[in-house]
């Protein structure tokens, strides 16, 4: 993931989860961010789809465990 893509991802997390100070790292999970509930998780993933012009399968949205996995998934989708 390029620095620009990382910055865009951070921006999306901050906007959707309403936390301007949020710092992304690979081990960050929903349990670490109070506003990252299942309700916001779907919104977040669909915002990522729109901004990165990719499409996730339902089970990919449901089974993500942390930010590191999400980055890898985005990279795979962007690669093809």
């Amino acid at each position, binding site marked *: 993931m390029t620095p620009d893509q990382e910055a865009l991802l951070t921006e999306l997390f901050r906007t959707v989860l309403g936390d301007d100070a949020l710092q992304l790292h690979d081990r960050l999970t929903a349990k670490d961010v*109070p506003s990252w*509930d299942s*309700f916001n998780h*779907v*919104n977040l993933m669909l915002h990522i789809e729109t901004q990165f012009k990719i499409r996730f399968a*339902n089970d990919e949205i449901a089974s993500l465990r942390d930010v590191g996995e999400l980055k890898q998934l985005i990279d795979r989708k962007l690669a093809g």
Partner: protein
Amino acid sequence: MDPFSLPFLGAAVVAFLAMRIGVPWMRARWWGLVNLVALALAGGWKLAAAAAALSLVAWVGLFFLRPANSSRSSYAKLLLLVTGLSFVFYKGQLQDLIPRFSLVGWCLVAVSFSYVCLRLIDAIRAIAWERAPLLDPLSLSGFLLPFHMLLAGPIASYQEHLVLARPLLPQPLPFPAVVSGISAILTGLVLKAVVADAIRVATYGVDGFIIVESYAQALLVLLYLYFDFWGYSIAATGIGRMLGVPTPVNFHAPLLSPTITAFWGNWHASLGEWAKRNIYLPLQIALVRRFGIARANFAGIASMTVAFAVTGLWHRLDWRFLAWAAGMALLLGVEKLVRDRFGPRIRRLPPRVRIMLRWLGPCYVIWLISLGLWFTAPSVFRS
């Protein structure tokens, strides 16, 4: 089939010993066979035969969901519809209308028996939309009708069960798993037969029927249900641990939850996870994709309401449970609103105030959950 009866515990011992044997089979298939034997020992050969027949029928239905089938999605929706209708048929006690077709009635009862129906829906979704591999009929029976999770859950997911699709090797005696399994079974027995039954006997007498005519009774019945259900679940988890069969933990101290949202993640957690996997997330994703991210809040609340309505109706096909489900979804929506609006401010409150809120949270949860129980009790408990 009482999980604390001698035939059931004997079946558990036989299953445990059988799962230690190394045979040149996949673990899931061997578990399927062992499970049918355990069902026969614990509930009689008719139950085992019905389980085998049902699994075969379900397998034939699922077979056509394989990836080569281009109309997989439509077919999966049809299967979901048939499963759902058979469930309504059973829950609505409509099988009494066709007594002459007792075999058909039997099959419908088996398909629609609560937990089997939920597991079948989970398998349909996983195979149709997640492209999970289809297990063979014997292995499928071990997922659909596991003897230790048949009566009161919990509900393992189809994907979780697939970890058993690997070769079975001779197993050394897993001493820690055995100790923790036996400990869980004994804990379950104490919770069910001592704590839950003491509450019931103290409130209604030895042979008394459970009825809820006052709020105080609703509170006591909530405690009774909690210990009774937790007892069954913890025993099932212990047996599952000893057998090496995925058996999720169903209760995480729900009565200490600070919010109703947290409560439903902690009470009958495997049902909550089932509803999230099979109803809430697919529906929310579909609605947001259809109506746009601008309407994400509407999509979230609508999906939550439908998920609660289905789980409510799963308990009883009844207007009270539908109203209860709508009330719960509304509460969760309000909690979500409060969390989004005031969450950061609440987290900045002085520690003393936060400690007070932490104590008040479970009181609020117990109050509302027992109110809900009081409301739905006439549908469940009849003298």
